[in-house]
Each structure stands twice: as structure tokens, then as C-alpha cells.
């Protein structure tokens, strides 16, 4: 690890109409180190990274690479300087295949410019084998989970021989095992002299991997120190400007009788022998690795995918769930993992996104009760602290955390008894995360139930009463709250 500075920015300023996003930023990354960036959404980290990657141009200030001043006009220029960026929002084309995506922009061609598909296939197979990835080269991206796709993006960037890699929330969608794989790769990259800028809300990971930590708040750098000189509480305090206690607002709630019982659930080729139950007032966690089948199980439970056989009982009565409508009728709702694909309707307003599952509440008696819709949705937004300029604002203008809260409001409007959450806090800042945890606890206090799929073990351990662990389509273990440890969970997951 050297004292040599690989990348330095000096006095960077960036404003947008009405907002000063970056204010006199000085920031430097030592060669061959991992430099973590922490800060709330809107603190300026992504803006600075976009400047480094050539997506924005700074209003003022200089960028130096190896102490030589550079002008980065666009991402292609950035790439020529050795900068690679792994974005947080996974933009992928569902119909594209793994091999096409892997070599996007650099498909092997013969001398006539025609794509050499055979070489592409060979290279892809070798690559997948070297990296120990279980995908087929011709698999379409839409068959992969969000985790898989994020993993592919990471490995793609690493293999492109960059000397500065920016990773924006790289572990938000992948599981523990893959995080470890990623950290091994990062260690290897460091040895090779690659510098890594690591943006993450997961402070425990940051402290595992970072050599230096810089904290952003409100567009300025509030602190920049070697990681060994800081504690996690210090960083949180610097990020929010005050101390917080109680990251997981778990409370003891009265547990009632079974609200959901699943017996012998089987979906051919996807999951098998699924038995579990959920009691009133419980928060149940589902842990496991990628491909364990958790999302698939919940999608089937919710009526999005078909079940081959098995029983589902709600309030002791057997029910047939063959569509989302059936599930909603039984007061069971689900917040999907991939909110871009299954969650938000980007061009419509936040109000319409929130009311979409409750249309009959506002369209009756032959006309649209718009005032009622505004009031009802407005109330839920207030309760859940959704920050939006107006109710008519399009949802795609909101930050990830606020979008997630709008989607939650959508489900809460139905007053559900069972709330299924698939990776609810992925890529969301500390503040919004906390609000989602509080919502879960409030549900439990009212005698409702929550099922949470999560790849963040601390979150599961902090919030759940019981955790089921899945592996390869089966439930391999069940843990009670007093026996929760990361090791036990991982043991069942592998």
C-alpha cells in the first residue's frame, strides 16, 4: 500500500438549478487502496463519481490522475484513463444473453467486422469457468436474478483492466458468499495496484474492506481519514450530523395464532417440500444464497407464478392463490425485489403509483373521487415520511428510498394482514431503512405479520423473530431468535 496518489480531485464544484450538489470538494485516493465513500442519498457521492466517470462536467475544479491534470469529457475518455464504474442502478436489457452482455461494446469480430460468435462463445465459457459462475452463455438476462446481474457487472468491470474502479453499492443485491468472493477479488486487485472507490451504506462491510474512509454530507467532505482511525459510530454520526442509537427498532410483540401455514409447497424445478408457518405479530426472515429459491417461493405464494402442488392456509382456511388478485383478497401483499421491473410505473405520478392497487376505493358511484384519493394517499405519505415535491410528481424523479416508501404505501393502503418484503432495504440510505424497519415493527405490534427476504444477515438477525434458511429450493433450517448467529445461518445456506 503506497502513499502515492492515484486519483485526486481539487476544489470541485457542481450545481444544478436550485441545488449546490458539490461544494469545494478535495478528495484523493492512494494507489492500490480501497477508499470508501459514505454519506446519505443526496450527499454528493454519486454526483462526484459521475464527474469522475465523465457523465457530468464540474463547474469548477480539477481532476488529477497520477498527479497529471486531466479533462474527462465522457465515459469513453474516462475508460481510456483506466476508470471503470459499476453503477448502482442495474440497467440491463432482459432479452440480452449473458455472452452478449459480458462483451458488450467489445464483441470479437473478424477482419470484415462481422461478429465472431464462436470466439465469443469460447471466451465466455472460459470466463465463466475461471470466475466460477453457474450461468450458461446463451442464458437471457431476464432469467437471472438481480443478484446474478450485479455479480456479472462487477466481474465485467474488473476484467476490463481498469486501474481505478468505482463500485457504487456493489453488494446491495448479492449474498454473503458472493460478498466474500468480491472481497477476495478486491484484495487481489489491490495487490496488482488497482485503486478502488467503494460507495456503500453497509458500514460493517466498509470497515472490513476499506483502507481510507471519506464521509460526505450535504455536498461537502466532512471527514477523510484512514479507516483504522474511525469507528462505525463515528462514521454514522458524521453522516447524519448527530448520534443515533438503536439501528434495529425491534420490540417485543404479542404473538398470536397461525396466520399463514404453507404445507408441502412444490413448484417443479424451482422449490420443493416447503413447510413453514407464520404467526400473528411475527416477523419472519428468509435467508439463503442466490438461487436458493426465496424470491421464487414468495412470488408463487403471492400468485405471480404458478404452483405445481401444495396447500396454503390463511387464518386456518385453505385458500387457492392463482393470481395477485387472490392474494390481495386474502390480505397478503408483496413488495418485489426488483422495483424497476415489478414495482414502479416510472412515467406516472407518485399518487397514481400509490393508489394503483386500490382503484375501487376512488372510482365508484360513476366518477373519480380525486379529492379522496389525494387525501388518503397524502395521509399515508405523511405517515411514512415520503419526500416528494407534490403528489403529481412522477415517481422516477424520487430517490430510491422514497420510491420504496411509495410502493410500501401502495400495499399499506390495502391494510394487509401479511406483508411480504423481498430485499426491502436494498440500496437505501440509513434513514429510509430505519423507517422501513419501524413500519415492520408497527405491523407486528398490530398483530399483523411480516415475511422478509434479505441477504443482509445483520438485518435479519436484528429484526426477525424466526429465520427460515433456504438452499437449492428447499428449507434447510429454522432458527429461533435466541439462537441467531451469522455462522448458523450460513451453515444452513450452503
Amino acid at each position, binding site marked *: 500500500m503506497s502513499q502515492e496518489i492515484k486519483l485526486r480531485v481539487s476544489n470541485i464544484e457542481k450545481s444544478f438549478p436550485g441545488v449546490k450538489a458539490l461544494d469545494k470538494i478535495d478528495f484523493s485516493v492512494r494507489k492500490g487502496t480501497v477508499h470508501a465513500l459514505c454519506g446519505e442519498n443526496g450527499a454528493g457521492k454519486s454526483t462526484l463519481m459521475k464527474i469522475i466517470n465523465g457523465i457530468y462536467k464540474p463547474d469548477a475544479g480539477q481532476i488529477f490522475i497520477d498527479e497529471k491534470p486531466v479533462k474527462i469529457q465522457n465515459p469513453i475518455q474516462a475508460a481510456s484513463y483506466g476508470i471503470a464504474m459499476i453503477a448502482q442502478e442495474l440497467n440491463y436489457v432482459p432479452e440480452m444473453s449473458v455472452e452478449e452482455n459480458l462483451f458488450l461494446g467489445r464483441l470479437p469480430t473478424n477482419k470484415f467486422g462481422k461478429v465472431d460468435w464462436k470466439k465469443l462463445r469460447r471466451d465466455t465459457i472460459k470466463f465463466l469457468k475461471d470466475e466460477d459462475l453457474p450461468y450458461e452463455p446463451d442464458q437471457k438476462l431476464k432469467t437471472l436474478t438481480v443478484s446474478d446481474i450485479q455479480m456479472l457487472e462487477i466481474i465485467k468491470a474488473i476484467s476490463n483492466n481498469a486501474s481505478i474502479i468505482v463500485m457504487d453499492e456493489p453488494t446491495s443485491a448479492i449474498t454473503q458468499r458472493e460478498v466474500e468472493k468480491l472481497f477476495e477479488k478486491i484484495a487481489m486487485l489491490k495487490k496488482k495496484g488497482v485503486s478502488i472507490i467503494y460507495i456503500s451504506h453497509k458500514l460493517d462491510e466498509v470497515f472490513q474492506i476499506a483502507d481510507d474512509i471519506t464521509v460526505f454530507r450535504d455536498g461537502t467532505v466532512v471527514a477523510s481519514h484512514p479507516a483504522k482511525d474511525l469507528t462505525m459510530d463515528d462514521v454514522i454520526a458524521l453522516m447524519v450530523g448527530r448520534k443515533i442509537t438503536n439501528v434495529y427498532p425491534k420490540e417485543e410483540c404479542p404473538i398470536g395464532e397461525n396466520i399463514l401455514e404453507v404445507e408441502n409447497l412444490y413448484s417443479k424445478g424451482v422449490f420443493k417440500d416447503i413447510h413453514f408457518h407464520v404467526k400473528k405479530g411475527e416477523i419472519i426472515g428468509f435467508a439463503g444464497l442466490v438461487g436458493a429459491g426465496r424470491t421464487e417461493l414468495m412470488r408463487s405464494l403471492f400468485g405471480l407464478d404458478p404452483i405445481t402442488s401444495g396447500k396454503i392456509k390463511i387464518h386456518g382456511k385453505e385458500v387457492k392463490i392463482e393470481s395477485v388478485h387472490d392474494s390481495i383478497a386474502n390480505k397478503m401483499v408483496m413488495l418485489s425485489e426488483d422495483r424497476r421491473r415489478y414495482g414502479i410505473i416510472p412515467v*406516472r405520478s407518485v399518487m397514481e403509483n400509490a393508489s394503483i392497487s386500490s382503484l375501487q376505493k376512488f372510482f365508484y358511484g360513476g366518477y373519480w373521487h380525486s379529492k379522496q384519493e389525494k387525501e388518503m394517499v397524502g395521509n399515508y405519505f405523511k405517515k411514512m415520511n415520503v419526500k416528494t415535491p407534490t403528489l403529481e410528481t412522477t415517481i422516477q424523479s424520487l430517490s430510491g428510498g422514497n420510491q420504496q416508501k411509495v410502493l410500501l404505501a401502495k400495499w399499506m393502503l390495502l391494510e394487509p394482514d401479511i406483508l411480504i418484503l423481498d430485499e426491502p432495504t436494498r440500496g437505501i440510505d440509513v434513514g429510509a431503512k430505519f423507517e422501513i424497519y419501524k413500519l415492520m415493527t408497527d405491523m407486528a405490534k398490530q398483530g399483523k405479520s411480516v415475511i422478509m427476504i434479505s441477504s443482509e444477515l445483520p438485518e435479519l438477525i436484528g429484526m426477525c423473530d424466526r429465520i427460515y434458511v433456504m438452499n437449492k429450493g428447499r428449507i434447510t433450517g429454522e432458527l429461533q431468535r435466541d439462537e441467531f448467529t451469522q455462522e448458523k445461518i450460513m451453515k444452513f445456506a450452503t
Partner: protein
Amino acid sequence: MVEKFKKSKIMEKYSIFIVLIFMVVICSLLDKNFLTKNNLTNVARQLAVGTILAYGEMILIISGMLDLSAGSVLALAGVLSVSFYKATGSLIGAFLIAILVAVICNLINAVMITNFKAPPFIATLAMMTVARGAALLYTKGQNILQLGKYVVFGQGDILGIPTPIIFLAVITVIIYYLLRHTALGRSLYAIGGNEEASIASGINVKLVKYKVFIINGILVGIAGVLFMSRVNAGLPNGAVGYEMEGLTAAIVGGTSFSGGIGTTMGTLAGSFIIGSLNNIMNLTGVDSYVQQIVKGAIIALAVIWDIRSKSKKTSKVILVEEKQDKQLNLNLN
């Protein structure tokens, strides 16, 4: 910031009407006959068919689909309707037959698209060819002439107002009501905006798609009656290309080709803008081939404008997001 936001939204909302006014002014300057009662009444009669088709295209595009078969189905429904009238003398029967035929064709479209997952472009393209063939087959390629009282639909008037305009007005109100005051209308916007998210939110997407094609069928059927009665003939080759004009009117009127956005009044304005353009080209004696080139150019411009205004919206979006996050307060214990 919120104030500026509202102002630009209002500008966007009413810009199409400003274009319409502009259009009318220019047209009246180019030819003094434009603003006469006679001419405007003619324009309005002519526009009824086009606008009704445009409404059909609009509701389909909003929900993420489209209909290339409108012109052909119009012709098929029209000739069968005319033929029915000549055989039975029943005006009401003929009217209903037109609707029935058009609805059946559109249900077939719906089945292809929903049950067989055919892309709407391909499915309605197929129907376009088949319906036209059926119309020609039925009439053995001949026009059906001398429709007698049938012309009352397209050429009559009630209390001095031409019947096509009354049809248009009533249908405009109904479509407006549908989009704004019904759950079905709201679902169209959702499905066009993100179909998978709509399914995951509990919307019965298949059923909605059937319903919207049925509505389209009713619209196309009515347009068929108006068209044939205006020209006083059952023309199996009539209304060729009318679906393109319907699409253009919808898009010029602000319906986004990528779905999830569109308004009744906007489409009405779009249709009138194109109608005025056609009319002024006729009045000033522009060669009909030149007119065709102009129409094609308008379609291209309308779509390019639509795409560009969407990308402007996206960059506005990023700015709002930055400001958004800065307003984020943390409510922690």
C-alpha cells in the same frame, strides 16, 4: 422551485392548443375561404371519422399497444353494414352490425395479443391484411352504391348541427370520461407505463386488454358507418391508411408512443391540427402527391418530437432528484 415546476407543467399541458390556434391563424391567412362556415363544417364532418379512430389508437397506445388494422376493419364493417341496410332497410340494425363486425375483428386482435403473446404490431398488421381481403371478397371488389337513407349518419344534421359532429362530441365526452373517471382508464395508463408492475400490483391485465380492444372495435365500427354514409357508397377499398392518420393525430396530440401518457383533449387537438393542414392543402390546390409527402413528414416530426420531449423530461428528472435528496430529513429517534 415548486412554482417554476408547476408553470412548466402548465406550459406542457397547453402547448398543443397553442399550436392549434397558431395553425388556424396561419390557415385563415393562406386562404380566405378557410374560416367560412361552409368550409369549417366540412372540415368538422371529415374530422369526425379521423378523430374517432384517433381515440381508438390513443387508448391502445396508452396501454402499450396499437392498431394497424383500423382502416381495413373500418372498411369491412362499413361494407357489411351498408349491405345489411340495403337488404333490411333497418338503420339501427345496420349501425349495430358495423359495431359487431368491428368488435369481432378487434377481439381476434386481442386474442392474438393476449393469449398468443403476439406483438400488437404484427397481430394488427395481419388483421389489416385479412380484413381488407375480406371486405374485397364480400363485395367482389365492387363498390356498393346508392345507399338511400343510410347517408343520414354522415350527411344529415340535427338542429343544424351535422350528425358526424354530434357523434364526435358524444364520443369525445365518453372517452374523456373513460380515461379520467374509471378504474379501467387508470389501468390503461398503468399497463402502458409498466405492464409487469401492473400485474404485480393486482391489475387483471388480460381482461383490461380485451376491454380496450372491444372499445376500439366500437369506435372503428362507428367510424365505418360515418365514413360510408359520407361518401354514399360501401367502398371495400375505403379508408386505406386511416390508421396511420389516427396514430399521427394521437401522437401529435401528446400520446407517448412508449405508453402510459395521453389525453383526450390533446388527441382532439392533434386531429384538428392535422385536419386543418389537410384542408388548407386542398384549398390552396397543393398536388395530392405532395400532400402525401407532407403527411409522411408530419408523422416523422411528431414521433421525433415525442421522443425528444421525453428525454428532456428525463434530464429534468435528474435535477429534481438531486434537489429531492437534499430535502431529505432524517427522522430518527
